[in-house]
């Protein structure tokens, strides 16, 4: 394994058009999900009179701030179907978009440190296999074969008792994913409009007919929200509530190192997840800061805890240095599953609530959200993820089930 130079990228990947006065569909938010939605609206449904409005710069929110982990080893059927669909799309997108965004299927280990972790992991491996998701249960010795730098000795405070392993999981270069989707969406006729903040919604009764922005009013047949941490702010403008809470989620990288870490390692119990980027940085993250926050920053003790966990698992990291830390704003739902579907406002659709795990779902979020907007009906994959589940009680309770603590 050697470090790889990043591919050269061309000067311009998309036009920067002025907004037109109206579109068939407006997507709010040019992150991964918004761009994937626009791409699939054009590709799968032939809807190309589309604008993606972005208040900042393209893919500058959570798409620039995640730890790039891609996996589909979720416990529950609805989640496994969604994330496995995403993983299938990831596997073909580099060729389809003609852009090598360094999707590297290096596998993910989810470590078990307690008897309860072991039972949960073995159960999840079984559930994954039944759902067609590749999954294995590894003993500590087998874990050490996959990731030799991991400390699997019994002399640690929380010894590694085993791990689940999904070989098809991996990482991708997040910026390049966004640029690949943006370039192709632009080629298909989608207007990507940066520096365009939605400040209100134009409604005709209970129906949305456009948006107010800092660059004027733009009319639309349908509007889709893909604004992650700011979804509640937009919903309030549109006159409805969402059951989400926005939290800071922090991550960090070390300086560049020679390749030492061949896979992705996640641990709920000591709570850190770590991979090594293609350039060589160790990339790590953990859980959200407990408090609500829109500040794109969190508290340092959260960073301190995840580094302590990382050094516990990887003694070799003790001499690495933190290069940068940062935070994004993630919108967390009560059942830790996303909301994709209709809203109480006619012709207004929402894709939100992905919490800490939205990046891996990017293509499936776009695929299902595009279907929902284009047809007015949910795709079978996102039908269970409707807003109504919080009233009917048909929750998809991934808290504690999704192989990661939220």
């Amino acid at each position: 394994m050697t470090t790889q130079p990043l591919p050269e990228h061309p000067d311009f990947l998309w036009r920067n058009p002025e907004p037109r006065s109206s579109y068939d569909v407006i997507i709010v938010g040019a992150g991964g999900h918004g761009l994937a939605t626009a791409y699939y609206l054009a590709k799968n449904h032939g809807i190309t009179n589309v604008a993606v409005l972005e208040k900042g710069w393209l893919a500058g929110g959570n798409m620039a701030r995640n730890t790039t982990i891609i996996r589909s080893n979720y416990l529950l059927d609805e989640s496994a179907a969604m994330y496995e669909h995403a993983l299938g799309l990831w596997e073909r997108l580099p060729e389809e978009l003609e852009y090598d965004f360094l999707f590297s299927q290096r596998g993910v280990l989810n470590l078990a440190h307690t008897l309860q972790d072991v039972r949960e992991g073995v159960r999840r491996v079984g559930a994954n296999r039944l759902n067609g998701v590749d999954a294995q249960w590894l003993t500590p010795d087998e874990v050490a074969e996959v990731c030799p730098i991991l400390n699997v000795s019994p002399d640690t405070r929380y010894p590694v008792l085993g791990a689940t392993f999904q070989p098809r999981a991996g990482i991708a270069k997040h910026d390049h994913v966004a640029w690949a989707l943006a370039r192709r969406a632009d080629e298909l006729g989608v207007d990507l409009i940066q520096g365009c903040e939605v400040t209100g919604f134009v409604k005709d009764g209970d129906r949305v007919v456009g948006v107010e922005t800092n660059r004027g009013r733009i009319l639309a047949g349908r509007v889709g929200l893909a604004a992650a941490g700011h979804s509640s702010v937009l919903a309030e403008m549109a006159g409805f509530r969402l059951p989400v809470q926005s939290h800071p989620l922090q991550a960090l990288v070390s300086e560049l190192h020679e390749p030492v870490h061949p896979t992705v390692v996640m641990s709920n119990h000591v709570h850190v997840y770590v991979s090594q980027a293609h350039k060589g940085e160790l990339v790590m993250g953990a859980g959200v800061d407990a408090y609500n926050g829109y500040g794109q920053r969190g508290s340092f003790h959260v960073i301190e805890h995840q580094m302590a966990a990382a050094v516990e698992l990887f003694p070799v990291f003790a001499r690495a240095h933190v290069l940068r830390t940062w935070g994004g704003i993630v919108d967390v739902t009560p059942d830790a599953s996303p909301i994709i579907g209709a809203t109480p406002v006619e012709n207004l659709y929402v894709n939100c609530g992905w919490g800490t795990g939205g990046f891996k779902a990017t293509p499936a979020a776009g695929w299902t959200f595009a279907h929902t907007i284009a047809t007015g009906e949910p795709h079978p994959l996102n039908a269970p993820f409707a807003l109504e589940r919080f009233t009917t009680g048909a929750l998809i309770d991934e808290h504690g089930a999704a192989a990661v603590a939220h």
Partner: protein
Amino acid sequence: MLLITCPWCGPRDEAEYHYGGQAHVPYPGNTADLTDEEWAAYVFYRDNPKGPFAERWMHGTGCRRWFNVLRDTTTYEVLAAYRLDEPRPALPQAGGNR
């Protein structure tokens, strides 16, 4: 890290506290009459404002008592801390530019 002033113990680091989400959410009085929508609103829906937010904190490594904090969710500035039997204070007026 936040510096939060416990109404009983004084200013302490955030790490001494536990977070409890939105404050001033009363248990519904007429539970037998609630619709599914009203139950959903009580159980699952909370305000999520960008700006001042009244929220509960518990001083876990101090007096272990719950209290309320008024905090700005954008700047993270703690605007006020007050006991559960006190009403939400009016926002402090710092000059004319807030």
